[in-house]
C-alpha cells in the first residue's frame, strides 16, 4: 500500500501548481481561466475567493461538466490548504481536462496574503432547512440559493399569470418580489389567481398577494406597486429589479414594458394565456428578439392576453 504522502508526491510530478500571488495577478489581468473551489459547503460558508465556481470535491466528477464544457479550458483549483485541490486536479486531468492547475497553499494562503474574499450572507438554521431541497440540486446548491435570496424580481400583474409566478418565486426564496397591479380582488378571480384568498375579496391585489407571499415565506421582502404602468412611471418602477416577469393583461402595457425593458436592458420572462393555450418565452435585449421583433404591430382590440 502506498502512503498518502507518496501519492501526493506522485501527483505533484504531474499537476502544475501556482502560488496565490500568481492567481491574483492572473485575475487582475483578466486572464481566461475558471477558478474552482473544491472545498465543502461549510468551508465555503466562511468565505471564498471572488469569482470562484464552487463544486465540492465529493461532487467534482459528477458536476464539473455543468460548469466547464471545454476540455481545454484552463482550470485553477483550490481547497483549504492545497492538497485536495491537487488530487482533484489530477481527477479532472484523468477525465480528459487538459489544463488543470492546483493553487498551492489554498484558501489559507490567500487569506494570509490579505487578498479579497467574499462571503454569502449566512443562512439561518431555518433557511438551511427551508431550502434544503434546493441544496440537493447540484446546479442550485447553497451558492444558487444565496443568489436567489439576493435577487429582485418585478411581477407585472398579480392575476392569472402573476399569481402562480409570485407563489413559486416566494417559495423558492427570491429575496425581493415587487408586485404591480392596480386591481382589487374579485370572487371570479379566485378560480385561477392563486395568490388571492376568499377573505381578500374587495382588497387590492397587491395587498392580498403580499399577505400570501409573507405567510408562505417570511424571508421575502415584498414591494407593492398599486398602480398601472405608464410611460411616466415605468422607468422608476423598473429601477433596481434584476428581472421582470410580465403577466400583464393588455397590449398597450406589453409594448410599454417591452420598450422600457430594451431601453434599460432588462430581461423579461414573458407569458400569455388564452383559454387552454399558453405560451412562454424569455426576451433578453440584444441576445434574442424583443416583443416588437415578434409583433411589430399591436394586435387588434378584442384579442386579450390574460
Amino acid at each position, binding site marked *: 500500500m502506498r502512503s498518502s504522502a507518496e501519492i501526493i508526491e506522485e501527483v505533484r510530478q504531474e499537476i502544475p501548481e501556482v502560488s496565490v500571488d500568481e492567481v491574483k495577478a492572473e485575475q487582475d489581468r483578466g486572464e481566461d481561466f475558471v477558478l474552482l473551489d473544491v472545498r465543502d459547503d461549510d468551508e465555503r460558508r466562511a468565505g471564498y475567493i471572488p469569482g470562484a465556481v464552487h463544486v465540492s470535491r465529493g461532487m467534482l466528477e459528477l458536476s464539473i461538466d455543468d460548469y466547464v464544457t471545454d476540455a481545454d479550458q484552463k482550470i485553477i483549483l483550490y481547497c483549504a490548504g492545497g492538497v485536495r485541490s491537487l488530487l482533484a486536479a489530477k481527477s479532472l486531468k484523468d477525465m480528459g481536462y487538459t489544463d488543470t492547475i492546483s493553487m498551492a497553499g489554498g484558501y489559507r494562503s490567500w487569506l494570509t496574503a490579505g487578498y479579497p474574499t467574499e462571503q454569502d450572507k449566512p443562512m439561518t438554521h431555518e433557511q438551511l432547512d427551508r431550502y434544503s431541497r434546493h441544496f440537493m440540486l447540484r446546479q442550485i446548491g447553497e451558492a444558487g440559493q444565496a443568489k436567489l435570496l439576493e435577487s429582485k424580481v418585478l411581477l407585472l400583474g398579480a392575476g392569472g399569470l402573476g399569481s402562480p409566478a409570485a407563489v413559486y418565486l416566494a417559495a423558492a426564496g427570491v429575496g425581493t418580489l415587487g408586485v404591480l397591479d392596480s386591481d382589487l380582488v374579485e370572487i371570479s378571480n379566485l378560480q385561477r389567481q392563486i395568490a388571492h384568498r376568499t377573505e381578500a375579496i374587495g382588497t387590492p391585489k397587491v395587498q392580498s398577494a403580499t399577505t400570501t407571499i409573507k405567510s408562505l415565506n417570511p424571508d421575502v421582502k415584498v414591494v407593492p406597486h398599486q398602480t398601472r404602468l405608464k410611460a411616466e412611471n415605468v422607468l422608476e418602477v423598473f429601477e433596481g429589479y434584476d428581472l421582470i*416577469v410580465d403577466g400583464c393583461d393588455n397590449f398597450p402595457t406589453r409594448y410599454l414594458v417591452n420598450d422600457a425593458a430594451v431601453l434599460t436592458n432588462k430581461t423579461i420572462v414573458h407569458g400569455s394565456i388564452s383559454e387552454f*393555450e399558453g405560451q412562454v418565452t424569455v426576451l433578453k435585449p440584444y441576445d434574442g428578439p424583443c416583443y416588437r421583433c415578434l409583433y411589430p404591430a399591436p394586435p387588434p382590440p378584442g384579442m386579450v392576453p390574460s
Partner: protein
Amino acid sequence: MATEAIKILVGIGSPLIGRLVLYDALRMQFRELKLSRDTSCPVCGDKPEVTGLFEDYDAWYDDYWVNAPAGQEAAD
C-alpha cells in the same frame, strides 16, 4: 415562468431566449418555435426608430386600432 426566472437568476441551464414554447392543455402538447431578433426592429434593431418611450401607450394603441382609417383590417 417561475422556473425560467429561477434559471436566469441562478445562471443555470438554457433559458428560453430565442425560443417560444406553446402549451396546449386540451391536447396536452408542447410545441417550440425558434425566434430570432429582427435587425430592422424599431426598438432593438440596428437602426432603432424608438429611442425613448412614447408619451402615452394607450393613446398610441387607440390611434392604431380604434381610430384606424376605415378599411384597415386586423392583421392575422
